[in-house]
């Protein structure tokens, strides 16, 4: 057996500034905050996904639902932050990427004589939303795109916070997913569209609403701290990005909170949130 000492994993810390949100009955962070705090009822309604104002007409026409979802959430997160989009490093996280586009290509490949559309092909890359963001922002800053199945939100958050702490720069983090088409939808049920974005700031920088400490665990957390709200019960299984809800609820409650996510293969992520 290993003779190595069992060391408690180090925590990574950052501040949370602006937020963006788009999901069923959650038409933006600002309007949804009372619902997330439990002060107003949640009423399921399909989200209206706006055409991204940041894109030129040619890109607007090519931007699919997932791209529009991601850009809507990111736009809200930085709207009142004092940052302009081209200043920010970005981390985009999505379980399925543009699964509708990937599905359309798979359909074409399975059809005798079916041709793959060149536009669909370049939109099929997992970093498509990041690419459209970069074009719209006119940004030359680094951007990374992650895909981690059910763990896409917690691991995306961890890596975005890691970048903030490692390089001392703010990072715009966005997690998003949208429903797949048949037949892939049966393999990877995603019932609703959902996107969340957070401006993460180096610890101690002004503009944070809360500070966040994250720790990856080599085992499943003992318990997820809060009882599951009705909102979580309705949405967490319906979209991987909706695993942001415990954090969003804690931010809306403006109270210190300990949170935990059970990750695949017997791992975990725990978080400590402290309002500023």
């Amino acid at each position, binding site marked *: 057996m*290993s003779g*190595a*000492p*069992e060391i408690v*994993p*180090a925590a990574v810390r950052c501040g949370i500034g602006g937020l963006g949100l788009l999901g069923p009955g959650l038409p933006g962070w600002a309007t949804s905050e009372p619902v997330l705090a439990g002060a107003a009822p949640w009423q399921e309604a399909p989200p209206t996904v706006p055409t991204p104002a940041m894109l030129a007409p040619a890109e607007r026409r090519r931007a699919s639902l997932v791209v529009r979802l991601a850009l809507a959430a990111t736009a809200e997160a930085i709207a009142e932050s004092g940052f302009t989009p*081209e200043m920010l490093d970005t981390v985009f996280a999505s*379980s399925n*990427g543009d699964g509708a586009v*990937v599905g359309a*290509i798979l359909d*074409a*490949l*399975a059809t005798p004589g079916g041709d*793959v*559309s*060149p536009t669909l*092909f*370049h*939109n*099929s*890359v*997992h*970093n498509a939303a*990041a*690419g*459209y963001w*970069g*074009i719209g*922002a006119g*940004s*030359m*800053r*680094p*951007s*990374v*795109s*992650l*895909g*981690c*199945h059910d*763990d896409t939100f917690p*691991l995306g958050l*961890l*890596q975005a916070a*890691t*970048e903030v*702490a*490692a*390089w001392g720069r703010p990072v715009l983090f966005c997690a998003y997913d949208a429903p797949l088409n*048949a*037949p892939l939808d*049966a*393999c*990877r049920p995603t019932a609703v569209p959902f996107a969340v974005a957070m401006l993460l700031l180096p610890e101690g920088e002004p503009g944070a609403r809360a500070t966040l400490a994250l720790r*990856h665990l*080599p*085992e499943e957390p003992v318990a997820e701290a809060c009882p599951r709200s009705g909102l979580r019960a309705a949405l967490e299984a319906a979209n991987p990005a909706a695993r942001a809800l415990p954090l969003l609820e804690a931010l809306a409650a403006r109270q210190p909170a300990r949170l935990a996510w059970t990750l695949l*293969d017997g*791992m975990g992520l725990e978080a400590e949130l402290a309002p500023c």
Partner: protein
Amino acid sequence: MGTGLAATRAALEERHSGLAPSAPEDDLPGTWVGRVAGLEDVSLPAALERFTCRNNRLAELALRSDGFAEAVLAVREHHGAARIGVVLGTSTAGIAETEAAYRRRAPGETALPADFDFAGTHDLFSLARYVRARLGLRGPAMTLSTACTSGARSFLEGAALLRTGQCDAVVVGGVDTICRMTLQGFNALALLAQGPTRPCAADRGGISIGEAGSFALLQRAEDAPVASLRLLGAGASSDGHHMSSPHPEGLGAVAAMRAALDAAGLAPEAIDYVNLHGTGTRANDAMEDRAVSHLFGAAAPCSSTKGWSGHTLGASGALEAAIAVICVEAGLVPGCLGVETPDPEFRADVVTANRHAPVRSVLSNSFGFGGSNCSLIIGRA
């Protein structure tokens, strides 16, 4: 082009390409591909059988090469499984398995066969989960996918995990395997070469698609005193220009190379060899020449090794990091394969025959769809 560093080094020295005419079932007459032979015979451990797909078979083959898995286990003994992370890049993971599942359906049937394991094969995370489980690690694992910079970018994200003290070692790299989606997709974009790819040639005609798996174990320099090679710097940028065409002046490429030089604390004169992204397309190679000559003039010898491997997409940055290691250890600047004279429009020092000279540091470029750019600098401590 070979299994393991020694075979890859021999292929580079002997100028022996791994490319061959595509198979009839690829439906791409005249194109060449770089397939890894014998992958079908590589089996995964029984407990991890659900991850079986071409991509994870290639990951397994790479883990078995050069004593890599054993080296990770030795570091695991020292630091503990929870202190070792896994950050890997791929563009298509096991999607060839999904393509096969679509084809296996009976006529008129829409649903995919019940034995198709989406999370174990198709899903991007399949790669990092398989490698973490295979190596018995318990640190953070994630798959990143930034098109053709994925493999290079894993080094930068792995370095961030080390820098924040969350990990003492990180398995980084990339694995991408040939599938119809990429073959037909690049064909639809009219980017595939007839015959083997000839990067930097005046009459270059596009890409040959290849496949590769390549890993590195990153540690803090002070934890690896016997390692003679270092990731000296890494830098990334975006073009913010177009989804599938590079910025014509290579502004994003210049920004990534400059960020890597800054991170390494090196002046351009310290780079002895530039391993180009060099895909063999008209646009990429012309853009990259502008970007490289902007920073290095004609002072740094440069070449693309995709004439050996083909464009291995999300693995290319990781494969070319291993090639950079070989170039430093062998004192080798490999000249572009199959190119007699470089494009006369190019201003950089494009090398077309192998040169032997001391190589202390190599800058390796990767660029991808979505305007993603990443440069690594690998060299002697």
